[in-house]
């Protein structure tokens, strides 16, 4: 079968996530893109660890083939990092929304420019 099909879809997911992060101006949508980007990396690690016919790496006399546990451990950590980043990002987005009354990057930039030019005039 398609030996690398898993990889191709993984790549598609990753790139879609990355695209949302860079291309979208909405702070929350960016974060969702970021988390999709991060999540899809899980597949990159886990898919190769799978052995067809194997089972989850919980040792038991009934089974002899287990999927690789190491990627699982790593990805557990990565998931935690992902959610930690998301939480902080959202907290920042909320604060930005309060300070600028917007979560659109373009509007925020515009408001900063106005503030900058005012600063220049006062000086």
């Amino acid at each position, binding site marked *: 079968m398609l030996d690398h099909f898993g990889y191709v879809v993984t790549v598609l997911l990753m790139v879609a996530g990355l695209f949302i992060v860079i291309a979208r101006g909405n702070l929350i949508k960016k974060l969702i893109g970021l988390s999709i980007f991060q999540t899809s990396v899980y597949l990159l690690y886990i898919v190769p660890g799978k052995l067809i016919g194997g089972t*989850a790496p*919980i040792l038991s006399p009934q089974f002899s083939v287990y999927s690789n546990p190491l990627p699982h451990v790593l990805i*557990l950590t990565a998931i*935690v990092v992902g959610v930690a980043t998301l939480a902080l990002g*959202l907290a920042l987005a909320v604060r930005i929304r309060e300070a600028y009354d917007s979560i659109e990057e373009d509007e925020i930039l515009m408001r900063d420019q106005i503030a900058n030019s005012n600063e220049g005039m006062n000086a």
Partner: protein
Amino acid sequence: MKHDLVLRVIGKLLIPYILLFALYVQFHGDFGPGGGFQAGVIFAAGIVFYALIFGLENARQVMPDRLVETMLSSGVLIYAGVGLAGLFLGGNYLDYFVLDPNPVHGQHRGIFWVEAGVAITVCGVMLKIFYMFASRGRSE
């Protein structure tokens, strides 16, 4: 949602089981899927569920902010402390073999405490974050 009787009844029935399940996940982690992190999240989810049904203030009485903030840091301290215990008992950092005269028991003991630390911090953090967001409110 506060006044939805059905939800309240179901919640009352369900929440203890959620918390129990969290404990199961915590202590069964050696033998099946699960462990401190999942347990912490599930436990926090139980409280969040409670907060959604019975209101944030009620939840805050069950799990007061002080307690939550203490959990936040004590989990990490327990974990790091297990590591230091390894040092004091003559091993390397995070060495569980020296925690018990029988090295394999030492591993069990180490893993138990470490998982406990993870669960406490994770539960504390999840709850704290939820509280922070929930109590922020829309400020216009």
